[in-house]
């Protein structure tokens, strides 16, 4: 039987970092077993044996910020987690970690966390309560309805693994089977289309790295789709192997910006484009792997889908279809295209394209499917709501899910429930509607396991003692169920004993367990599972695509999960609020994107306050005029507009869920997140939209360069030795440098948040960002283009900008007190406690990457516990900046010296490079000619920003190539 190697389920690439993590993991095994640390979190007078003060311990665990289930290593210093890094050996993410994952520590240390249980008093107000009382009330509220079958229901997120089992045990004890795994973004249409085409209502594994052309039909693969970190890695690997990526969609999303080519199609016409490709591919003789019968069926089904129908140029379709022939490819839909009124047909069309191109069972594989496949459909949530209203469900336990915010239709039903208990770490809209609120541990304080993809058993272990008087939600359920084992660690271990038996390894369970803890889990091989096409009724199922779109009175609404807030669950992390959206660069807000034509017609400009009204509700938000969106469409990100989700998520934007049809899509059972007709009404006032982009165009200044493939760059100008009255810097041992590969960089902004976490960068809030005072040391610069305003075709260029560590640094010579100085290793050092704050260095920095502390940084407790003890917290009045994570450089050099060896290439990794899902950032020693950074900085695509200023930056960018021609 053909085995599916589990090393990385998306790319299959080897792990360069494996050795590195082995060194890290050694401490993990020891510590992870000893849960006998003192209860109070104090400095260690007598530290536990494995703890050396000043040295970090690493715990391998699983990120639970979204259902993707990436592996993370939690860095712990003196008993406190303060940074998460991607686990390099984890098959889901392979070392990278997205911005939301980085912000998980701000979930742990969120100052708005629930610290005590809450109970509704006789007047109906939530009051603080003691644990025994609250638990008694919880048990009593459940027990009252346990007699009646299925009267108690559990509503959780997409759980898998131990929590799933605990829920099942609990439900069994209360005579119920109603476990609803609710995810606001559950890809019902994809599951439905997979069922219709292959009889598998599941979400398959997408092996992007093996695909040559990658065709994306509206899916936000890089932002939030299923497993964005792993997908981004896979796509970057494919692109470095020469794959061409084409996006079809009505909106130029971040994924579309990353694609070699964005083919703008009318909103909702993605399926037509996919079918036009199927038709053309078959006409070109593709699909030879299919049986003659299937091929004929497919050909017949595709016949009506001419390129004209999709509004596409016939020659373009032919060119793109030709590329699919005889090459491994992948087509994927999701995002706005997969949740409009014809989503099932669109998803089916994309399935048929994968079928015709031979991607099914090769790059699109059903042997491993996503845990999200088990998630409930929106229709099931509505059905639960109806059951509550009818009285068949009387008591509801909600586990860390926020349906009141995400599904306003369900909120109305919830109010009718007799008993609602929330097991949550944060107050939110749903806990506000509960009768009992039990504060529970965050994932970084909890034991758990998950199986995000079949066979990927990812372990969660607490990286530190619990911060507050909270409980493990699983333990609460197990206790209520009177389970024999209520210690969740033992509960997880018991499951893993079964897994150990099944795995059939020779090692004892203990060594299996410790190895799994060190590695972050256990990845087992799975058998191949091939699917075959069910041709029956394909024409009927595709029919919605052929129906002319209904003439809408207003604009067509497209909502999309935000890169920073996802479906809203990350909105209370201040880093996420302060993280500029990579496309609009807006912070702390929501917005509605309008095409320039529509905006001009309505007399709306960016920043104007507008009212958006649909048949179901209305919101007010700021307008953002975006040339990347099709005329007739209006796009709003999800995730803002919370009313009770803590200080950071309040007063920021509006909740687009208010505009959505409360009824589920009849065909898929999903939410119709897109396709609603909306009216935009200018309110004639400024909304106060804050964007960090000072200007949208790079004015041909060559900052984020891209070039069509095959066009050769003009010869690079090398520096001529220039006269200087000062001797040149001698970098005797090292000259640290960086290479940023813009073919790999997709603008996901993980590096930005990683830098906040590593370097104790304070957030400043919306008003101060509006004044230009954001503190980020590294930023994603987004330019519309190419070149100047109005040039076509419209494209989005992205780059990251951080301190370029110039050899001839303009900042250094102007500092009157040597606070900015040149280190022996070529860094532009900054001595914070020497800085007097003239800001001359910032004025003189061509890259504008120095940040001044206008006010003292605010880290309200317990957010201050996240601070990295290796990095100074800067005081007001001083300038700060990127130093390539000098603390990590020092640690790396120290380690090498202790071990009596030179620093190895790749041993020192700054936070931004570590976090990068696509490894776009490479760091190393430019003095070492064999280092990766040295070799890459001689690449033919190299360029340096503002080279003509003779600043001699240590950061080399590799120009992006756009393969927008065959």
């Amino acid at each position, binding site marked *: 039987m053909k085995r599916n190697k589990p090393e990385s389920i998306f790319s299959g690439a080897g792990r360069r970092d494996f050795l590195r993590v082995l060194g890290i993991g050694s401490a993990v095994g020891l510590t992870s077993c000893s849960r006998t640390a003192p209860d109070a979190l104090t400095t260690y007078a007598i530290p536990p044996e494995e703890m050396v003060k000043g040295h970090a311990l690493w715990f391998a665990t699983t990120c639970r910020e979204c259902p993707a289930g990436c592996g993370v290593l939690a860095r712990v210093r003196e008993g406190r987690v303060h940074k998460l890094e991607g686990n390099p050996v984890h098959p889901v993410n392979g070392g990278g970690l997205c911005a939301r994952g980085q912000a998980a520590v701000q979930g742990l240390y969120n100052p708005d966390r629930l610290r005590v249980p809450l109970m509704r008093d006789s007047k109906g107000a939530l009051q603080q309560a003691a644990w025994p009382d609250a638990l008694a009330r919880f048990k009593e509220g459940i027990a009252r309805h346990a007699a009646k079958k299925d009267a108690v229901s559990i509503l959780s997120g997409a759980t898998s693994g131990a929590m799933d089992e605990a829920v099942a045990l609990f439900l069994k004890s209360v005579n119920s089977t109603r476990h609803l795994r609710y995810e606001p973004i559950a890809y019902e249409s994809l599951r439905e289309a997979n069922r219709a085409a292959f009889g598998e209502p599941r979400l398959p594994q997408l092996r992007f790295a093996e695909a040559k052309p990658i065709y994306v039909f509206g899916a936000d693969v890089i932002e939030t789709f299923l497993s964005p970190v792993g997908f981004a890695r896979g796509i970057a690997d494919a692109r470095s192997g020469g794959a061409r990526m084409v996006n079809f969609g009505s909106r130029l999303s971040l994924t579309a910006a990353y694609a070699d080519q964005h083919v703008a199609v009318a909103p909702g016409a993605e399926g037509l484009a996919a079918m036009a490709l199927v038709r053309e591919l078959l006409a070109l003789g593709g699909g030879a792997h299919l049986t003659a019968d299937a091929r004929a069926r497919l050909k017949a089904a595709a016949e009506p889908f001419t390129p004209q129908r999709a509004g596409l140029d016939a020659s373009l379709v032919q060119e793109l279809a030709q590329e699919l022939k005889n090459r491994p490819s992948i087509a994927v839909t999701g995002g706005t295209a997969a949740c409009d009124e014809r989503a099932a047909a669109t998803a089916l069309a994309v399935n048929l394209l994968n079928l015709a191109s031979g991607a099914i069972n090769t790059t699109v594989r059903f042997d491993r499917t996503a845990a999200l496949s088990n998630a409930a459909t929106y229709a099931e949530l509505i059905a639960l709501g109806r059951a509550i209203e009818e009285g068949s469900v009387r008591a509801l336990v909600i586990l860390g899910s926020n349906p009141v915010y995400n599904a306003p239709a369900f909120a109305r039903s919830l109010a009718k429930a007799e008993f609602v208990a929330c097991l949550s770490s944060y107050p939110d809209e749903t806990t506000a509607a509960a009768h009992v609120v039990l504060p529970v541990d965050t994932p970084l304080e909890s034991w758990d396991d998950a199986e995000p993809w079949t066979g990927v058993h990812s372990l969660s272990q607490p990286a530190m003692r619990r911060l507050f008087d909270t409980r493990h939600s699983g333990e609460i359920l197990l206790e209520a169920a009177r389970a024999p084992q209520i210690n969740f660690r033992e509960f997880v271990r018991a499951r893993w004993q079964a897994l150990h038996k099944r795995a059939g390894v020779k090692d004892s369970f203990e060594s299996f367990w410790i190895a799994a803890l060190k590695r972050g889990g256990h990845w087992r091989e799975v058998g191949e599972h091939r699917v075959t096409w069910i041709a029956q009724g394909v024409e009927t199922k595709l029919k919605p695509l052929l129906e002319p779109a209904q003439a809408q009175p207003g604009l067509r609404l497209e909502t999309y999960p935000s890169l920073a807030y996802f479906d809203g669950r990350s909105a209370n992390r201040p880093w996420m609020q302060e993280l500029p959206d990579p496309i609009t660069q807006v912070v702390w807000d929501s917005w509605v994107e309008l095409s320039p034509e529509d905006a001009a017609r309505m007399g709306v400009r960016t920043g104007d306050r507008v009212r958006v009204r649909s048949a179901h509700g209305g919101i007010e938000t700021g307008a953002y005029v975006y040339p990347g969106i099709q005329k007739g469409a209006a796009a709003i990100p999800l995730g803002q507009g919370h009313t009770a989700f803590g200080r950071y998520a309040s007063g920021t934007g509006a909740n687009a869920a208010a505009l959505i049809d409360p009824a589920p899509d009849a065909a898929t059972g999903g939410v119709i997140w897109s396709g609603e007709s909306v009216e935009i009404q200018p309110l004639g006032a400024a909304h106060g939209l804050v964007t960090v982009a000072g200007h949208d165009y790079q004015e*041909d*200044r060559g900052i984020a360069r891209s070039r069509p493939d095959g066009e050769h760059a003009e010869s690079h100008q090398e520096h001529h030795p220039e006269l200087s009255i000062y001797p040149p810097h001698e970098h005797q041992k090292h000259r640290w440098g960086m290479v940023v590969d813009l073919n790999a960089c997709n603008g996901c902004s993980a590096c930005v948040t990683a830098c906040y976490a590593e370097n104790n960068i304070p957030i400043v809030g919306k008003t101060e960002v509006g004044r230009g005072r954001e503190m980020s040391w590294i930023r994603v610069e987004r330019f519309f283009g190419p070149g100047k305003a109005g040039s076509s075709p419209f494209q989005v260029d992205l780059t990251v900008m951080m301190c370029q560590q110039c050899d001839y640094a303009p900042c250094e010579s102007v500092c009157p*007190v040597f606070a900015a100085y040149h280190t022996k290793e070529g860094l532009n050092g900054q001595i914070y406690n020497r800085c007097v704050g*003239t800001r001359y260095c*910032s*004025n003189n920095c061509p890259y504008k990457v120095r940040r001044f502390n206008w*006010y003292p940084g605010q880290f309200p407790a317990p957010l201050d516990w996240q601070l990295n003890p290796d990095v100074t917290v800067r005081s*007001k009045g001083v300038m700060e900046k990127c130093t390539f994570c000098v603390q990590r450089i020092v640690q790396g050099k120290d380690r090498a010296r202790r071990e009596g060896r030179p620093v190895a290439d790749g041993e020192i990794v700054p936070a931004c490079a570590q976090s990068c899902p696509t490894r776009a950032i490479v760091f190393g020693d430019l003095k070492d000619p064999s280092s990766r950074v040295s070799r890459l900085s001689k690449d033919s695509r190299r360029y340096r920003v503002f080279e003509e200023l003779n600043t001699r930056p240590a950061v080399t960018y590799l120009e992006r190539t756009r393969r927008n021609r065959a």
Partner: protein
Amino acid sequence: MTQPPTYTRIDTDLVRTMQPAGRAYYVVLAILAAIVGWAGYAWSVQIREGLGLAGISHPVGWGVYITTFVFWVGIAHSGTLISAVLFLFRVRWRSSIYRTAEAVTVFAVATAGLFPFIHLGRPWVAYWLMPYPQMGGLSPNFRSPLVWDVFAISTYFTVSALFFITGMVPDLAIVRDRSVGWREKIYGLLAQGWQGTNRQWRHYVAAYVFLAGLATPLVISVHSIVSWDFAMSVVPGWHTTIFPPYFVAGAIHSGLAMVITILIPMRRLFSLDAYITQHHLGSMAKLMILTGMLLGYSYAIEFFVAWYSGNPFEREIFFWRAFGHYAWALWLLVACNVGAPLLFFMKRFRESTPWLVVLSLLVNVGMFFERFVIIVTSLAREFDPFAWGLYVPRWPEISILFGSFAWFFLLILIFAKLFPVVSMWEVKELLPLPRRKST
């Protein structure tokens, strides 16, 4: 002077300015002190809360504070020009106005000198900019134009203060001789034992010429160095070789305007029409035509070079200066600094007191905005378009800006009551020698 006054008359007239002041004087003094107090409060809040209270930000790290600093350093130039340079060139009309011009210089430098502190992120460690003996061997960075500034400004202040005090010695002796009690003692101290002997005069005049010679290069050097704060950077719009002469011309322009602005009310209040005549003011107005045209040439050359260089960054900055967000400020300053002084070509404007006041005030305003435009528009639109931004001053900056004017006029007012505002001994030099009538 239609009726040449006598030596005694001069003494009497000019010492009269020092008579006890009326109520109006104290009211004005109190108002000015209150404004200074408010500005001090604003600064204290800014120190306590953080520089974020001001409007300066990223990318515009320098704003009204540095603008005001350069403005006052510029004002300080007229004094030395009138007293030292014109003295060396033996320009006679300077005699009756140089004392006031010197006071303007000293007080303007004293005002300007506050701003480098006010704009610092951590003013409490401002002394780190000085090369003082320090155990750790830390020294300031002598490559930084800001350190050059420290020396340029402190040297200029020292020399102009010395020149100011030295020039007053014979007059202070006159005041001493007309005072009684403790006043006599203090003025006596300041007069340094001046007796007016031949020997003293000989040494005095030699010393005065020497100090004038010492001060003259400073007129050029101080503002050249201040301009290097900008010219030595890489910022497009700053990084240009024209800055030193351009800044010196601008400084003299603004200085002359400020001296006229002060002299006219002073002449009125102290009835000094016999000493400060229309001829003096007219001469300064003529000088302003020259400096105004020099500035006009500099402005034009800046734009020309930006275009001619082909440098896209320079071109963008200057195009934006002329037509962008702050274009109003540019056209305002061109009108005030270049346009307004051209009216002085016509005698009607040169000899009309109201016009002199209006036009010199306009030049003052224009020179403030000149520095504002240079500093702000260049920083706002540097190399990286993503980091472009705007600047809007906020209340501490506005308060401290007005506070600086109040502080300056407060010093001038106090000076006017405590010291002779017109040089008695030099005005006497202008008189025909008194002789016995020959029989």
